[in-house]
């Protein structure tokens, strides 16, 4: 029993304390409204309604009087007037505030108020109570993150007034520290603040007021501020997922491309080292790279080309090969006789020598080989060097010191030997004149042109070599189409062989100052 009583007393104590706390809160709100309304409302008495069933009117006076001096009457439409009890409250600056709480409240109808002091009316006012609401600030203000950058969601509870749910308007203000921003909200108790700074702490407050149509009044005081920090900048998971997917797809595509073009890429990055294995069958596989053994066993496996062994060393000097008579002695002699007397005699000796060497005269060697041979010679340092292989060949002209060119002949001393490895030396007009005996050979007496038709006879008859300044070799007409006219060859083939073959092959004695680089002169022999 004692314990039960103690518990009851304790419960009552708690109840009273809570009531007192709520009253104190209400008083605090009331006091603030009174203070604010004194500055806002110009009419007297100043009145406001906090709910659906109350109305508070007050006025302030400095006379230091008491509540008994005042009387307050109110009259609704077409009703009798009623009196309200006046209470007083001291205020700052030796002022007194007088209050009247109306016991009966009717909305949507005119209310007439009158205040008397000592029987004299001091204030008179007509008002509609539904237009004088001064509500309490909204409760349960909540600020949360929305999950999106720069956003905060603000929610609150509406004033718990019946019939007024759809007649409220709210004002929300927020700040990050310096300036306040405000937004008005109608017919809703939540708002999403957008355009906020990321990762920033914001303070938010809300106040309420009737919308002014059916009900009207004053702005309530601001709620206590609620702080919330906006979400920090973070990678949107959707964007991250998309990036990963795109990266994966790109990697897959590149791998597919690599696999499909593997061979070509391999060739580019690791170029194949040419291996001579296909030329030496079995050298590496059977004999392990032992060339000696492979040679011994290969037999006819190796087929070197003639050029493989030839010209290992370019001969340095022109070798005078065995003399040969390229043409029948008679014809030679007849030609020789056509020569000038001075040259004729000398030529006779030479022709005899040539006859003796006629035995060594052999048929025209294969044209292809011969041409190739002399091409190689051209590239050599000395134009007059040739191999001993020429000894077996017959179509050549030997020029020795006894050969003396005609005066008319253009000297060729200053012609570079290297520039013209092979030349046909033209001596005189007689020589050229003798050409006509060979056949239909166009000639020019002075120019020293050499045109040949027959490859075999021609060169040997021409050259009674005496006092030669240089030696040159004429090639048999191997059928190779070459145009070795020096004028043309300068233009067409520098150092090379080019041109076309025709029977009217012509040669010209190059002029002394004329460059003769790479101008082999051929005469069809």
């Amino acid at each position, binding site marked *: 029993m004692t314990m039960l009583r103690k518990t009851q007393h304790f419960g009552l104590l708690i109840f009273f304390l809570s009531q007192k706390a709520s009253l104190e809160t209400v008083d605090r709100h009331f006091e603030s409204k009174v203070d604010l309304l004194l500055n806002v409302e110009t009419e007297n008495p100043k009145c406001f309604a906090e709910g*659906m*069933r109350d109305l508070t009117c007050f006025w302030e006076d400095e006379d230091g009087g008491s509540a008994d001096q005042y009387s307050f009457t109110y009259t*609704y*439409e*077409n009703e009798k007037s009623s009196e309200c009890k006046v209470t007083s409250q001291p205020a700052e600056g030796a002022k007194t505030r007088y209050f009247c709480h109306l016991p*009966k*409240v*009717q*909305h*949507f*109808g*005119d209310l007439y108020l009158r205040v008397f002091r000592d029987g004299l009316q001091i204030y008179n006012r007509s008002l*509609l109570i*539904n237009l004088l609401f001064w509500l309490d600030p909204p409760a349960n203000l909540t600020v949360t993150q929305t999950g999106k950058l720069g956003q905060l969601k603000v929610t609150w509870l509406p004033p718990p007034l*019946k*019939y007024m749910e*759809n007649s409220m308007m709210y004002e929300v203000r927020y700040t990050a520290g310096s300036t306040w921003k405000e937004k008005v909200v109608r017919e809703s108790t939540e708002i999403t603040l957008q355009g906020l700074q990321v990762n920033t702490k914001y303070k938010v407050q809300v106040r309420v007021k009737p919308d002014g*149509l*059916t009900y009207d009044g004053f702005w309530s005081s601001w709620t206590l501020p609620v702080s919330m920090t906006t979400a920090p900048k973070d990678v949107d998971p959707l964007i991250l997922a998309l990036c990963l997917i795109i990266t994966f797809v790109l990697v897959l595509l590149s791998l597919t491309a690599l696999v499909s073009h593997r061979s070509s890429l391999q060739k580019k990055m690791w170029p194949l080292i040419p291996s001579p294995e296909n030329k030496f069958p079995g050298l590496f596989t059977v004999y392990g790279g032992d060339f000696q053994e492979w040679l011994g066993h290969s037999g006819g496996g190796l087929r070197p080309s003639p050029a493989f062994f030839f010209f290992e060393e370019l001969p340095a000097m022109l070798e005078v090969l065995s003399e040969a008579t390229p043409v029948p002695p008679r014809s030679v002699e007849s030609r020789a006789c056509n020569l000038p007397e001075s040259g004729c005699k000398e030529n006779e000796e030479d022709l005899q020598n040539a006859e003796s060497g006629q035995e060594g005269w052999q048929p025209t060697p294969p044209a292809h080989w011969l041409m190739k041979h002399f091409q190689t010679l051209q590239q050599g340092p000395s134009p007059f060097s040739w191999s001993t292989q020429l000894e077996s060949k017959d179509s050549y002209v030997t020029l020795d010191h006894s050969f003396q060119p005609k005066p008319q002949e253009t000297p060729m001393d200053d012609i570079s030997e290297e520039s013209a490895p092979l030349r046909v030396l033209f001596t005189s007009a007689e020589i050229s004149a003798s050409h006509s005996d060979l056949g239909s050979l166009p000639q020019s007496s002075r120019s020293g042109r050499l045109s040949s038709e027959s490859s075999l006879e021609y060169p040997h008859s021409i050259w009674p070599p005496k006092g030669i300044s240089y030696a040159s070799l004429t090639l048999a007409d191997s059928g190779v189409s070459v145009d070795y006219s020096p004028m043309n060859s300068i233009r067409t083939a520098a150092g090379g062989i080019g041109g076309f073959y025709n029977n009217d092959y012509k040669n010209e004695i190059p002029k002394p100052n004329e460059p003769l680089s790479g101008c082999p002169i051929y005469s069809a022999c």
Partner: protein
Amino acid sequence: MRITTWGLVTVLLMVLDWTRPGSPSALRPICDPLVLDRFIQESRDIELAMGTCRDRCRLSESLTVPRTSVDFAAWERKDVREQTQEVQEGLRLLGQAIERVKASVSDTALIGLLDSSYDNIHSIKQVIRSLDMQDWSPSSRTWDTWTVSSMPELFRVHTNFLRGKVHLLLSRAPACRQENH
């Protein structure tokens, strides 16, 4: 004979359809509070337009208008039927008063305002009809009324009546509650 019988049956069905009591309204319930808010705003604009008019807006006779003041406690003690009847009676009285004033006024501007006010009341009646509350016949009891003697007072009564009783009635209309729930 057959044609005649069928004709009689058809006529009978038509008559029964006409006389059928309590036929539901074909109108869709208007439960949007913004609709009434718009009417209230119109009425307030007319009242403000009438504010400067004094002498030439004085009525030659007093007009009976409904009481607009509402005691919430007393209002909540009434049932929906009584509330509807009170609102309908008030709207009827207001309509009558506007028509009587319009007949005695020659100013075209005033006539225009009176026409707007009458259309406003007519629209409110349509809204009530949409909520299926129009067929309750008014009872014999006397309603709270009072008289006005000027047009500004008449329009003020009009506005306050819409703000008060009409607003309270429509905000708690059973048809709208059924839609919400």
